[in-house]
């Protein structure tokens, strides 16, 4: 009886290929989802804790947000310095989210995210030729604060005995800062003079990179020299999981042929992903041969590369400047 429907079944399966979202619709949907996800944090604790940490000014803004039914907070997420909603984002929604987070790891994560946001804003404002000294200094100061908070929470994490988490968080912070530094360099190449090399932010970024690299190295050394196999294996597992997820996410992104992509971008991304995969294979071999320390370093390298790639792709799409090729090629040379 089933045989009667074989052709019909095949036709239905083939017809399915015609009912899809367009590339543009998928891009728009993905961007909207990312924006929504940014507002909605994980690991939230009771909203009644730590409210007193907010300043009076923030509480006034908070009241306005409550009255607006949250729409102001939502709209402020994509705001940039100079916009009226920007202070809502930086003085209310972000601090509110920060105080509601539970645990050093979540707080370190969010501080890293805020540092990354300030750097994204800096690039965007620079690209739009709206970067004045006041904005530049304010963003540099905010970056310094967020990096300091991240480092403080990372140290707390290590003191709580979660050295693996501390190592993860530091290497992530380092790769994010490094990727943003590359993005800013490329932006300045494309639009000379937009990102002053001797500016306050450039100096803050260089200092943050230096201190974070040193912290990351010290955690890695501490884990590997401890000869504590379960600890090294736990760090390995974390790095392995993170690289795997990010690689798959980037592969899925590449196959969705984003609007901002040209064939050169696709090729560069494919090459970069191949490099990451070969690092992962090398790490797996080292792990199989019980060279756990080597495996950890290799996974950490792969993780740093894939994190950078993620930020570069985002900048390429948001800024409308060919960031992918310049950064990736200089990275691979």
């Amino acid at each position, binding site marked *: 009886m089933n045989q009667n429907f074989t052709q*019909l079944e095949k036709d*239905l*399966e083939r*017809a*399915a290929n*015609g009912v*899809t979202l367009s590339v543009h619709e998928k891009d728009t*949907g993905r961007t909207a989802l990312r924006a929504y996800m940014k507002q909605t*944090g994980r690991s939230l604790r009771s909203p009644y804790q730590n409210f007193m940490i907010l300043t009076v000014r923030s509480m006034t803004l908070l009241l306005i947000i409550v009255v607006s039914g949250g729409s102001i907070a939502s709209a402020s997420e994509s705001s940039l310095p100079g916009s009226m909603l920007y202070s809502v984002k930086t003085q209310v929604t972000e601090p509110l989210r920060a105080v509601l987070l539970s645990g050093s790891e979540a707080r370190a994560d*969010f501080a890293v995210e805020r540092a990354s946001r300030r750097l994204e804003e800096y690039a965007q404002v620079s690209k739009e030729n709206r970067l004045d000294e006041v904005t530049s200094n304010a963003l540099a100061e905010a970056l310094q604060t967020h990096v300091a908070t991240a480092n403080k929470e990372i140290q707390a994490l290590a003191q709580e005995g979660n050295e693996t988490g501390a190592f993860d968080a530091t290497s992530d912070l380092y790769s994010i800062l490094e990727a943003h530094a590359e993005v800013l360099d490329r932006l300045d190449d494309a639009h000379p003079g937009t990102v002053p090399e001797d500016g306050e932010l450039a100096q803050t970024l260089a200092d943050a990179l230096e201190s974070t690299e040193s912290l990351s190295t010290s955690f890695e050394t501490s884990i590997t020299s401890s000869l504590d196999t379960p600890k090294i294996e736990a760090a390995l597992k974390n790095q392995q999981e993170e690289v795997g997820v990010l690689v798959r996410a980037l592969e899925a992104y590449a196959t969705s042929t984003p609007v901002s992509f040209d064939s050169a971008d696709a090729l560069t991304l494919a090459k970069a992903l191949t490099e990451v995969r070969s690092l992962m294979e090398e790490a797996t071999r080292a792990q199989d041969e019980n060279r756990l320390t080597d495996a950890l370093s290799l996974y950490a390298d792969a993780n740093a590369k894939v994190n950078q790639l993620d930020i570069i792709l985002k900048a390429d799409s948001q800024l409308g400047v060919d960031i992918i090729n310049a950064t990736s090629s200089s990275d691979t040379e």
Partner: protein
Amino acid sequence: MKRKIHEAAFIEAYDLYADALFRYCYFRVKDRDLAKELVQETFAKTWAYLASGKEVENLRAFLYRVAHNTSVNEQTRTKALSLDELRDAGGYDPVDEREVTPEQGAEHALLLRHLAELDESAREVLTLRYLNGLPVQEIADMLGEEPNAVSVRIHRSLAKLKERMQ
């Protein structure tokens, strides 16, 4: 960096399942724009659920359940979809024209129009099974039915569709 990993995995899920969920919603509500909104709402609700600290064992099945519950309140259009409507609204748009001849494209569009005109129960199982390629067991889990009962429903729905096509 658990949050970042969760976010990356969820965006990966969006890239993997958005089209399939769109097809599912589209044949439930028969309105392209509404189906797009339902897909976004499905992902937003699922993320909010995960962000509250809850775990999901099978993300794909969970997404379908959310899509089902989200679209259940939407008024299904009663009017039949015409061929032109399927094409003009982009409801039917072959991905690669080189692989589909104009005749095949027309046949597929006609098939989808007949599918859209079936009753909700038939439409649902045929969309899940053939348009989205879900195994019978997963459809059964999603609908809370026995796999045998789902197989029977699929078989009967195919018969109804074939009858319409003749």
